[in-house]
């Protein structure tokens, strides 16, 4: 059994009346890259910021390598580092100055700070921007400065909150490979993202969070297996589908699940190829105009939709 790096138990976080996280239970293991996947507002950042001792749990507790964030914050802060979703700097900051300050706070001497900051800045293509004001930097460049903090710091537990959200493709791949390097050199990694591609490429395990609770947990391939029915029939239609038609499809196709959102019908079934015809027949009889049809193997996107998307019941009302 692997050692637990982060143990989250019955974690609840409220902001006034807003329940941001609602009873989260989760273990992140030492040495893994953990993908924290969830739609906007699902509670990813709130959880990460609580791990980083920035927020206090409303209920429950989080332990980082056995140290409680509520009772032993100092010990936790020595082990962790976080690259925030929104880059943190004063408008009048200059990247080089800020990063050297950061490096020294996390324990480097002045001389070592200058060296390591220069190395990391050069690698990320930031060196030419080192003396510009933060207010003059592009969004992606600001984000790179934020991520650079962790590449400099190399904490035992590195927390990245949507690290590549604003980065170009080349830089994305560079950042991913640097995150993997860090992991190989001994850092446990948590990456929050709403990009399934990123979660799949990077993570050993993925946790899907939705409305503040954990919906699914496993390796990307385990998660795909969790979708009932091996296939997804995806039909784009024009106009309205009656509840009656939907029920007929459910029965005829023996769907494990049926979702309808934005004019796209998704049926989770076994032996999808054989059942497409049946579905189309029903729709035509109900005078629903079909625009396109596809039978798919589930991707992590499907897993994401399955656990977080609009449910059929909600659409039907």
């Amino acid at each position, binding site marked *: 059994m692997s050692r637990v790096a982060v143990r989250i138990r019955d974690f609840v976080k409220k902001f006034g009346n807003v329940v941001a996280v609602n009873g989260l239970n989760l273990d992140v293991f030492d040495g893994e890259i953990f993908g924290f996947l969830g739609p906007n507002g699902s509670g990813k950042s709130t959880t990460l910021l609580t791990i980083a001792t*920035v927020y206090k749990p409303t209920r429950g507790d989080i332990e980082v390598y056995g140290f409680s964030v509520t009772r032993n914050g100092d010990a936790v802060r020595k082990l962790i580092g976080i690259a925030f979703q929104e880059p943190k700097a004063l408008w009048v900051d200059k990247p080089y100055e800020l990063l050297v300050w950061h490096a020294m706070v996390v324990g480097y001497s002045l001389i070592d700070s200058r060296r390591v900051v220069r190395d990391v800045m050069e690698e990320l293509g930031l060196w030419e921007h080192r003396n510009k004001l933060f207010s003059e930097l592009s969004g992606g460049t600001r984000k790179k400065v934020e991520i650079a903090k962790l590449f400099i710091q190399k904490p035992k537990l590195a927390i990245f909150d949507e690290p590549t959200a604003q980065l170009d493709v080349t830089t994305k791949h560079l950042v991913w490979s640097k995150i993997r390097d860090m992991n190989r050199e001994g850092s446990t990694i948590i990456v929050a993202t709403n990009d399934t591609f990123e979660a799949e490429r990077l993570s050993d395990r993925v946790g899907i969070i939705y409305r503040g609770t954990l919906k699914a947990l496993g390796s990307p391939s385990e998660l795909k297996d969790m979708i009932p029915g091996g296939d997804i029939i995806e039909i784009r239609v024009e106009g309205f589908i009656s509840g009656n038609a939907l029920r007929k499809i459910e029965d005829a196709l023996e769907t494990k699940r049926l979702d309808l959102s934005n004019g796209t019908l998704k049926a989770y079934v076994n032996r999808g190829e054989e059942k497409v015809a049946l579905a189309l027949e029903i729709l035509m009889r109900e005078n629903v105009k079909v625009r396109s049809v596809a039978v798919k193997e589930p991707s992590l996107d499907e897993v994401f939709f399955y656990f977080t998307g609009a449910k059929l019941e909600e659409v039907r009302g």
Partner: protein
Amino acid sequence: MKEDIRVLILVMLWDIRKLGRYKFFLAMRFTWFLVQVLVFGLLVSAMVSIRGPGGLLDYYKFYIIGAYTAVLFSISIMKGYDIAEEIEDGLIDYQLSLPIKRRVLALGRALGGGLASFTYSTPMLAVTILALKVQNPIALLAMTLVSLLLAVSVSGLAVSIALILKSGDRLDILMGVSDALLIRLSTIFYPAVAMAAVSLYYYAAKVNPISYAADMLRYVAEPGEFSGFLVADPLIMFSLIAGFAATSTIASIVLLERKIEGGYSR
């Protein structure tokens, strides 16, 4: 311990590093101060004549030190806005996540804020010293020390208030009110004896730490000059100022250790 001090200095540098930021603001303050010293001070002292137990007060000198104290107070209380801005921009979140003990963070921000505020005020302090023709090095040192103590106390207080309120708007109101009240209800512009007629004024000024800071500066600048016009004995004044500095710093430490979490409350 050695590590704590190293980090403390780094935290203090956070505020010092921002010094270059308010050049325009500083220039305005400085100009206004010069106007006070060269124009208002002379005008007002021609009109005001205050007699105390020790004879007639040199109101010009009294006024200049009061004006300097007021400027130092205002600059220091601006630290609250700095912090409010940092809360909104998430910089406090960033600092809370760093491997810094909460009490080192609080102490560093209070001391750094105080030191930065004092540094801003040095051009004004220089003018004050020139106008009063203070030459005794011990007096100069003591003026610096008292100014630093005031700057640290007020910055520490402003930092704490900003952290509690977590909102620039609420801070605006509170700071505006306290700025006006604390300056008015103190011996910054009138000596305690002259306020005795209005008891509200008098007693407010008597318990106002700003009075003690202003009068202590007067005392150390020219020990004999203002005797009979000060709120209290020098020793009592000094104890109170030091106590105020300690209390406000400890308050910000306790606050940050126990209560503070990140986020910006709208």
